[in-house]
């Protein structure tokens, strides 16, 4: 690393602030002016920008899942829940609540020959004098029994109609429902297979290129080593030759002098 000799006040902090453009306007202008005349700052700024460019290419791999969590509502919407309950069930529940409330409030409902009488209050009324059973009382209660049975029949028919309608809609939805998931499943399986195949091809190609690079680097290293060894051998051989030649020359000289 180069030794920085710049004496700009608080230089490192200002340089970093300038590098990331997180700096006051006045400080920016001052440092910009300084950089034009300061070689060390200009050089370091360029190097740090280069580091940032390299860092910018570091991307984390895409997560396998598209989303990590899915939270359910903590307070379920009461309206939506009520919508899923049939009307007749809601009516029955309302009647049940009404009945329970009536029993608590000491509600007294009478429907007889004198008409509909409703009486509320916590104080129980004085018991009426027992009336002698009247002949044909059963027949006198017949009106409300008839109305009740009519209401019962109406409810039953409505329930039947509702269940038939839902059965029909379910039946009509069945063919599409039976085929769609399969088609969708096949489509998704095809997409997954295609992606998998593509990935495998990519991986194979990547490995091949890496293998080729490794082979090339190894070959280059081997060639260099061979060349070096040949050089050593040649040098040694040449040295030996020189020695032998010197020896022969020496012997020739010695033989000639004698």
């Amino acid at each position: 690393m180069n030794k920085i000799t710049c004496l700009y006040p608080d230089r490192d902090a200002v340089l970093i602030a300038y590098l990331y453009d997180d700096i006051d306007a006045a400080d920016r202008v001052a440092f910009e002016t300084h950089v034009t005349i300061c070689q060390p700052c200009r050089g370091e700024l360029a190097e740090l920008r280069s580091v940032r460019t390299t860092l910018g290419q570091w991307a984390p791999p895409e997560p396998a899942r598209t989303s990590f969590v899915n939270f359910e509502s903590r307070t379920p919407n009461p309206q939506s829940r009520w919508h899923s309950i049939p009307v007749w069930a809601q009516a029955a529940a309302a009647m049940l609540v009404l009945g329970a409330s009536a029993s608590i409030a000491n509600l007294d409902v009478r429907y007889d020959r004198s008409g509909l009488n409703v009486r509320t209050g916590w104080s129980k009324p004085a018991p009426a004098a027992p009336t002698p059973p009247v002949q044909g009382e059963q027949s006198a209660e017949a009106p409300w029994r008839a109305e009740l049975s009519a209401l019962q029949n109406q409810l039953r028919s409505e329930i039947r109609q509702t269940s038939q309608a839902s059965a029909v809609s379910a039946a009509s939805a069945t063919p599409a429902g039976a085929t769609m998931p399969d088609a969708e499943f096949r489509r998704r399986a095809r997409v997954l297979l295609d992606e998998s195949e593509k990935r495998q091809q990519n991986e194979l190609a990547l490995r091949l290129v890496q293998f080729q690079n490794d082979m090339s680097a190894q070959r280059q290293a081997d060639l260099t080593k061979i060349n070096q060894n040949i050089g050593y051998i040649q040098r040694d051989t040449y040295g030996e030759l020189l020695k032998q030649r010197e020896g022969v020359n020496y012997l020739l000289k010695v033989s000639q002098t004698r």
Partner: protein
Amino acid sequence: MTWSDEELVTRSIGGDADSFNQLVLRWERPIYALAYRQLGREEDARDVCQETFLRAFRAIGGFRGQAKFSSWLYRIALNLCRDWVRRQRRTPVVQMPEDVDAMELAAAREPSESIEDLVARHDLTRVVERAMAKLPEEQRTAIILKEYHELTFQEIADLVGCPLSTVKTRLYQGLAVLRRELGANNQ
């Protein structure tokens, strides 16, 4: 209509989970990226990301909005990363280059990217990860938050709980180390 983070937080506090899901969708990638760059492993990053949102969901009622929602999330994620490294006794940030899956890169790359480019990018990623692994945790955190999440110096200072000048010093020192490491690798 696009709600702001603050509006979605308010609705989440009121019990609207869909609003919180929107926050998750909006912030899961940045949080995952932060965790990945801190931990260096996709599986760990995913777990930390999930735990971050679970904790945020549980604690959203106590969020008073003194800081930005994203800063609050970052703080949770950074604490979890720190705990994760301590608990797992793993060396942070990829001193395990074999775990870097080239296939993930292949899947994420552009279709037009050639294999040579892919290999080059893969190598570059390994080089950067190795260099980042040599940084002390606080320098690495400062660089990640500034470089990849574009937080201001003040936001980083608030997030990690140190003076603003310290953040700048950490950034400068961290970048100096990276410059040396990356330069040495290029030679």
